[in-house]
């Protein structure tokens, strides 16, 4: 947005964004297209696109004059129709691509200068010509939600949409999603979609799609191929396996985590082996045979969630009264991201969390322990102070990721009131979130 003064000046001169103008300043003249103004920088400067494509900012002051020459272009408001089916070859499987927003479907936002979600899922499909070699596609954008704005209500909406698409006969589902919380949605869908008969791939992009080097092309191609042609009827994230644009990993939805802020291989499996490797030429190689096969069961959506669950990180110097806040606010369950094997401060009265946890459990609020180490398994009985808590019902969540335990506890609380039942549910593997063995090869530090 330009300053009030410039906005009214443009209005009075009937100059619209996209018009070719002549800006004069003293003896100097600049002809070019007046561009939308990003909010950062000097909002009292005109942004002019010169004929060679460069933009410059020209400060509006007493010596500056602007004159309209002609209409050059208009900001396109046109949107593609939201739903479209593309049948390339009747012999190919058909998949449904569901767009939810995020960087994978992004354009430049001239107001903020940032990148925002705007391409329809169909645009993405059109951007990736190789898609036609692996599947017929239906593309539909159901929402435009940035990853960080996702919520349990939206997970439920997505789950129902996925189920509907599966019921209407698609051979696989691709969900495009922002990357920040992609693994939360993946975990939520893993628990919600029961008796899943087909693959469901969650896919995002770490680079915006407006650049030639975007990772979306490979990611979406691999996700589509995985959804259409793999035998793995599980919810998976499908993203770059490494920094090369040559193959992606399909990682189980409950075992995938964003482990890097910006790299294209940010999603890596935690305490699990990737289920498959999908390469840029279309090959699918199974890497982990422990998965659910495609079938013909009818998918059910388990959408009962108790959302009054908190995920709390333990740190040195933490004030234990923080726990009182959650209790007072009526929280029904707590996931504690503890240190190391599952430790919390217990030594002195000022910092000990033991009394708070006892209080919570006394009130029927389950306390689930995971580790902030991310990799590895928590252990309930090594640390003697915790043995007492363990016997009182604190739940040590094995090798479950904190984010996954947070979502699983929502399901547990919606199903059960009894602490023992909750504990049993939390410690029973439902969607691959708990493995029996921790394998050495599953800890890869790049």
């Amino acid at each position, binding site marked *: 947005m330009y300053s009030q003064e410039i906005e009214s000046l443009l209005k009075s001169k009937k100059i619209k964004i996209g018009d070719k103008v002549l800006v004069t300043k003293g003896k100097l003249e600049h002809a070019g297209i007046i561009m939308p103004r*990003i909010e950062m*920088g000097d909002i009292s*400067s005109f942004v002019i696109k010169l004929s060679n*494509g460069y933009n410059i900012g*020209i400060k509006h002051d007493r010596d500056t004059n602007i004159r309209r020459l002609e209409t050059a272009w208009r900001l396109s408001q046109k949107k593609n129709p939201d739903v479209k089916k593309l049948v390339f070859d009747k012999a190919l499987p058909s998949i449904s691509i569901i767009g939810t927003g995020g960087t994978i479907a992004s354009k430049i936002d001239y107001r903020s*200068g940032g990148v925002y979600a705007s391409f329809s899922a169909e645009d993405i499909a059109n951007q990736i010509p190789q898609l036609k070699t692996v599947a017929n596609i239906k593309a539909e954008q159901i929402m435009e939600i940035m990853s960080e704005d996702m919520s349990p209500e939206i997970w439920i909406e997505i789950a129902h949409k996925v189920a509907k698409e599966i019921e209407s006969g698609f051979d696989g589902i691709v969900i495009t999603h922002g990357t920040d919380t992609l693994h939360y949605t993946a975990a939520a869908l893993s628990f919600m979609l029961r008796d899943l008969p087909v693959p469901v791939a969650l896919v995002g992009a770490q680079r915006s799609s407006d650049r030639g*080097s*975007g990772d979306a092309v490979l990611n979406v191609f691999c996700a589509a191929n995985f959804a259409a042609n793999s035998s793995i009827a599980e919810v998976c994230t499908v993203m770059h396996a490494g920094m090369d644009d040559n193959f992606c990993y399909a990682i189980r939805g409950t075992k995938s985590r964003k482990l890097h802020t910006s790299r294209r291989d940010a999603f890596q499996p935690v305490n699990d082996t990737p289920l498959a490797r999908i390469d*840029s030429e279309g090959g699918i190689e199974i890497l982990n045979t422990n998965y659910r096969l495609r079938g013909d069961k009818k998918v059910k959506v388990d959408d009962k969630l108790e959302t009054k669950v908190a995920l709390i990180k333990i740190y040195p110097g933490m004030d234990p009264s923080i726990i009182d806040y959650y209790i007072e606010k009526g929280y029904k369950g707590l996931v504690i991201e503890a240190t190391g094997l599952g430790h919390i401060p217990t030594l002195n009265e000022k910092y000990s969390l033991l009394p708070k946890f006892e209080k919570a459990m006394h009130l029927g609020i389950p306390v689930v322990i995971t580790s902030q180490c991310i990799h590895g398994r928590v252990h309930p009985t090594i640390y003697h102070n915790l043995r007492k808590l363990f016997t009182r019902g604190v739940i040590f969540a094995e090798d479950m990721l904190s984010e996954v335990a947070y979502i699983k506890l929502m399901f547990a609380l919606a199903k059960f009131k009894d602490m023992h039942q909750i504990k049993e549910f939390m410690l029973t593997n439902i969607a691959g979130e708990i493995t029996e063995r921790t394998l050495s090869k599953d800890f890869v530090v790049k």
Partner: protein
Amino acid sequence: MTQKLDYKKLRLKGGLEIHQQLDTSRKLFCNCSTGMKEKTPIFTTQRKLHPVQSELGLTDAAAQFEYLRDRVFHYQAFSNETCLVELDEEPIHPLNSEALQIALQIALLLNCEIPNEIHIMRKNLIDGSAISGFQRTAIVGLNGHISYKGHRILITQVTLEEDAAAIVAEENGRVTYRLNRLGVPLVEIDTGILEGYSPQELQEIAYHIGIMARSTGKTKHGIGSIRQDVNISIRNGPRTEVKGVQELGLLSKIVEFEVQRQMKEKPKEETRAANLDGTTRFLRPLPGANRMYPETDIVPIIITKEHVENLKKNLPEPWTNKLERFKTKLRLPDGLAREILGSEYLNLFEKIVSTKKVEPTVVASTFTSIIKDLVRREKVEIDRISEHRLVEIFDYLQDKKIVKESVPEIVKYLATYPQNGVGDALKELDLNPLTIADVREIAKEIVSQPNMAFEKAYGIVMSKVRGKIDAQEVMKIVKSVMK
């Protein structure tokens, strides 16, 4: 030999784009070193590029063309010279302010107007040389000029950009680039259409623009640090752009060849690459304005009036003036003056000629031909010699404790024994100057031998006294003794 052509009659039009790397310690958008010294990659990553839309929703023809070639790009990473930014795995950091200052200085030296706000753009380059698929570039100056032979040469714009990755190999659709050059600050200076100049004059104009950039003293030296692109058309025909002329001396030849090619073939609007022999090869169609869109990861930079005024007050002496001064005041021949301007010892040269009574041509040739010869022919490690040792040589010359002929031997000695001084060199190499009387004695003895013609006698005497007395003096002595 190329035939002589009447370029005026052919209506030769040239446009120059001079690219000069800046000598900042860090890259334009990250904190990696700009050294470009590392030879062994720590790993290679492989990428694909895809066609994209520009800000105006138009896909660029050049970009499409490259895409159709379906190539796989391999990028070599280096330990100190690459981070996740060059690998396109991390958003860029804020613009290097040192590079911006130098670029603004260059723009002002070229009499440019500075935009009130600098907008960094992404210029789509899908030949793979920018791993992100675009090169970041921003206008820092507009509508400048320099004068050449009394003519006003228009400088249309000065841009600050990130240098692209350098190509290592290309075979069967597999293209390999080194990432260490990617992101090195680069200033591009574009001229308006130059009409009525010969290829040789275009080369001279390129030289003058180049030394204006170097006036800041903050530009890189050596092969590839300055590169010229030249746009050529004749008889109002289509324009071709020849990219990557690394040797300025080749520029006029390239223009001559390209004019001849355009006369023979029917030229098309296209981008061509310069070959080492001065001929060119087709690269891709000419890119258009559609390939530009804003860099949205960082915000526009406001340049205040005060900032510009302050820079103007502190501008360095333009090297075009310096070149004149070297030629008139210091009486350096044109070639030597240019050589010392292009030398990394320029500052030291100026310091020495302003403080010591030594002939400037002697100082200049020491820092150019003598040192270059020693490095090239005798692999002398010149960097081992500290600056004060080099200065010491000229103290000895000033005090006539050595003759200029002994300089190469002394430099060689100092590079071998960096702890020692010039005095040690004199002792160890036996280079204490001889008096005229000493040399006369030697000459007499030689001349007295049978069958001794002047040439032969002079040669023998020189071999005995080389580096201990001026050669001119020896000639005089031998002549007088022979009379």
